[in-house]
């Protein structure tokens, strides 16, 4: 009882209102440090295969000897098709697969985004497993061109060879689908959409033959030309669209087969050199997070993951002594493992951050860091809510004076228990005027629909102009909004506080929900939006410049611009990719940018700019 009473008394303490900014800063700090300690041995774990049925590397592989001659022949066949028209290429690839005794079908697809038409053709063949009942299938994908646009000569040839080779085995207990897709992103997407009957029939052809539920997919990216190229390492790509990841068991199986059974080193996230130091682990993890946060397709496997089909791409890198047959044997062993599966991969993790081929952290360990960042906004918004309910204090600058006066007020209240007096301003809760803040914050979020629509639908030529215009408008809009508001009815201090309160509340809510779906995106947006916690209305003619410049540096448009400059990417290219992602892959990163991040920044900027146009210099607020 006395504890409750002392807590209640503590509630009125002036110091408690000073606490939240520090608490928020602490949350951000701990969140970031949390992430930084993850690569240490104490916080990450070695990977392990938890699905018993997989038995990686337990079988002898027979893909050797005369298969090599067949592979070389197919590689020349593929090289001969490079300059041929699309229809002829499709027909010829189909013929090769058909000559191996498989059922073959083709699929035409056409997408349009940013005023471009993306079209192509997929060829696929189904091997009916001799021991299978056509209820389950695994997919081997060889995209005609890889993510860099190079022709995947050896990859396609390897798929053709393996199709011929697998057909002769009697042990398959799942159907195997060999897919040669037109390219690395749209082709597999069209195919997997059509496989699950969720394609738009107007532009994408349905599949004429199908098998059972897809259990897994492996894509091969081996662009060595007709004369071959020996590679050094396997680069395993595992990021799916929207940051979804395949089951960790699939990745582990591939690593364990490649490095354990075949002696091929494995690498990830373009870390060609990795000597397992702290820096390199951290760098791998951060690269993984950026890829996950961007949510883009990173290979032919990406399109499968949204359908809950675990998939990875095996990419050959470097100059070394491993040849196509080692890669073929790796794939063979991998398929033998997948063939053993009794049920869908479910044992291992779906949420993880990898920092080396055999080291990871799972969601339970890393999630708190994004949650802490999200919580910092909620804390500040609660503090602002409480603050908005307090009566405005008379501006007495020295804190010691005020404390004394508060204390004297308190005693008066307690002694005069018989008289119903009007309580002092510290206790009194001022009525909050909610309408303007609510209307403003919700309209700011609706305003975000405008750039979202424009960037997803503008033709390629107009994108650059749109981008810079939006950037210019974004920078000037807060001042325009503040000016317009002051023209009609200048928002009071309380309303400004409430605008920030609601905006941060929404931001915290969105980010904590997002953290469960796409940890990295939530973390990155949270980090860039973190300054919004600490901005307060500036007083006219007092250190406004740094604040305004600082705030504009974390403006989403500016961040995108700086980031593209840093990685040497072209802004237009990024926007075209994003629009393609929206229309083809079902990517929603831009929804987060325009409907979560941008409105939060806008509201924060309006709060800062709000007092610029007031003549009332007494309207002050202490952060």
């Amino acid at each position, binding site marked *: *009882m006395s504890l409750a*009473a002392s807590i*209640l008394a503590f509630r009125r303490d002036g110091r408690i209102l000073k606490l939240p900014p520090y608490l928020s800063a602490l949350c951000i700090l701990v969140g970031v440090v949390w992430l930084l300690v993850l690569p240490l041995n104490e916080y990450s774990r070695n990977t392990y295969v938890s699905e018993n049925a997989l038995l990686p590397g337990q079988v002898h592989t027979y893909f050797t000897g005369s298969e090599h001659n067949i592979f070389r022949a197919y590689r020349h066949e593929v090289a001969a098709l490079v300059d041929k028209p699309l229809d002829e290429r499709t027909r010829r690839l189909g013929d090769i697969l058909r000559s191996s005794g498989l059922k073959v079908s083709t699929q035409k697809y056409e997408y349009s985004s940013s005023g471009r038409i993306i079209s192509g053709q997929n060829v696929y063949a189904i091997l009916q497993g001799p021991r299978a009942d056509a209820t389950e299938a695994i997919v081997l994908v060889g995209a005609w061109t890889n993510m860099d646009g190079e022709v995947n000569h050896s990859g396609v040839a390897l798929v053709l060879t393996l199709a011929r080779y697998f057909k002769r085995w009697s042990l398959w207990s799942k159907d195997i689908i060999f897919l040669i897709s037109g390219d690395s992103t749209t082709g597999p997407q069209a195919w997997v959409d059509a496989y699950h009957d969720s394609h738009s029939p107007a532009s994408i052809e349905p599949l004429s033959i199908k098998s059972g539920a897809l259990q897994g997919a492996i894509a091969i990216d081996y662009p060595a030309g007709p004369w071959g190229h020996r590679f050094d390492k396997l680069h395993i790509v595992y990021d799916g669209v929207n940051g*979804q990841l395949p089951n960790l068991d699939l990745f582990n199986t591939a690593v364990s087969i490649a490095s354990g059974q075949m002696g091929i080193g494995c690498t990830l996230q373009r870390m060609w050199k990795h000597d397992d130091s702290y820096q390199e682990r951290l760098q791998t993890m951060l690269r993984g997070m950026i890829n996950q946060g961007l949510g883009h397709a990173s290979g032919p496997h990406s399109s499968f993951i949204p359908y*809950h089909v675990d998939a990875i791409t095996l990419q050959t890198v470097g100059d070394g002594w491993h040849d196509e047959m080692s890669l073929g044997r790796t794939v063979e062993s991998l398929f033998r493992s997948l063939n053993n599966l009794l049920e*869908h991969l*479910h044992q291992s993790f*779906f*949420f993880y951050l990898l920092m080396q081929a055999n080291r990871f952290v799972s969601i339970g360990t890393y999630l708190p860091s994004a949650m802490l960042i999200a919580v910092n906004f*909620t804390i500040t918004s*609660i503090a602002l*809510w409480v603050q908005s309910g307090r009566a405005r204090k008379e501006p007495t600058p020295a804190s010691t004076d005020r404390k004394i006066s508060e204390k004297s007020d308190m005693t008066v209240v307690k002694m005069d*228990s*018989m*008289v*119903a007096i*009007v*309580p002092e301003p510290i206790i009194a*809760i001022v*009525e909050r005027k909610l309408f303007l803040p609510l209307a403003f914050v919700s309209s700011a979020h609706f305003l975000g629909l405008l750039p979202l629509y424009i960037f997803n639908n503008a033709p390629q030529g107009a994108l650059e102009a749109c981008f810079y215009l939006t950037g210019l408008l974004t920078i000037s809009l807060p001042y325009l909004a503040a000016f317009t508001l002051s023209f009609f009815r200048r928002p009071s201090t309380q309303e400004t506080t409430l605008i920030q309160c609601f905006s941060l*509340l*929404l931001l915290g*809510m*969105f980010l*904590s*929900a*997002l953290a*469960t*779906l796409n940890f990295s995106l939530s973390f990155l947006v949270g980090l860039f939006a973190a300054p919004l916690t600490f901005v307060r209305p500036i007083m006219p003619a007092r250190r406004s410049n740094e604040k305004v410049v600082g705030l504009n540096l974390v403006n989403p448009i500016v961040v995108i611009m700086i980031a593209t400059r840093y990685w040497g990417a072209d802004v237009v290219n990024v926007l075209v990719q994003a629009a393609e992602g929206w229309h083809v892959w079902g990517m929603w990163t831009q929804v987060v940018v325009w409907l979560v991040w941008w409105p939060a920044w806008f509201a924060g900027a309006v709060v800062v700019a709000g007092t610029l146009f007031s003549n009332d210099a007494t309207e002050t607020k202490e952060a």
Partner: protein
Amino acid sequence: MAVDKQKALLFGAAAAVRLLLFTAFPSLPNLLTGRVEISTPVTSFKRLQEGVFLYTHNVSPYDGGVFHQAPLLLPLFSLLPNPASHPFATNLLYTIVDLLGANALMQIAETGQSVSSRLFTSSRKDLRWSTIAVGASFLFNPFTVATCIARPTSALTNFFLLTSIAKAAQGASVTCILALSFASYLSLHPILLFPPLLLLCYDVRVTKSKRSLNPLAFSLSHIFGLVIALALLLYLSTLLTGSWEFLAATYGVRLLLPDLTPNVGLWWYFFIEMFDSFREFFLGVFWLHMASYVGGLSFRLRRQPLFVVSSLLGIFAIFQPYPSIADSALYLALVPLYRHIFPLMRYSFLAASTLFYTSFLGPAFYYLWIYAGSGNANFFYAITLVWSLGLSVIVGDSLYAALRDEWEVERPEMHGKEIRRI
């Protein structure tokens, strides 16, 4: 006159928003209809379509085991053109139902029963929102809009309940009883609102006629009326379907919970986990728990029967077997009538934020569980627990505020003071 113009504007805007959403996003109604947060097995529009299909093909609609809604809905919806090809009539019906509900809510606000009833007048009675604001907070509540777009039959129940409360607050016994019997006929649990509505109606009638009515005769006549109305509805249903089997398929399902499709409530997970031997016992406990609030609240808050009704609606939104956000929308519609006790509520921000957070985390976790396959049922259930917590904080906090308000009328010298439990 000005109020009428405002009202027309409000209704026009609300109808425009709904019809715009219906026409501009033609896939939205079907998307929302499939959401477990809005459509439950006993209210889903999809299941209603199934029932209507069977009914129009002269098969008993309850044969498939899918349809669990009241039989009288079938002729109504079979009269409308097929919503798959001509959705406009259905959309218009649901929009009108929402507007009529809002109209009833505004009638409740006009009577001022929430601030001063026969036995009690709040000391804060001047602190009120206008009827337009109360109506707007119902019509533009995202939950109400989502319910309207998803077209579950709970929208009809909500309309009948609001009408029933409005008529009780105006002292119109017959309409009140009729509307209540329709609501109970559609979804069973509204019958629990009969005692507080009877009290409300009695208070209003006594105030209006300025003489005391015999309470016993009053309640007996009303009970009799309710029984007649319900019997008539059930008899009509039997005539329509040709047998009494609809009782087991509609009320039986609501009482015995055979369909454990996830929803925002607390029952489904509990009954999935339970050993079958305890099922009957806990069904009894859960129902008894929900029903027990009726007596307690009616006694304790005898002086504010309308508040009892609205608190009970909040409790139903949490504890009924198949709740959805439609029930929460109804409760949240009545909360603004109690603007005068808002200053006394202590956790309004907390509760509102909880509801906000859960309404985003809920779909996210459901997605992780059902579509991404990377979560499990516990994710979604945890969020429904938090959602229920948020609602119960509002219910509990408003109860506290209402009691405190009553107490301050008794002891005006304690106005604005901190209270201390002794």
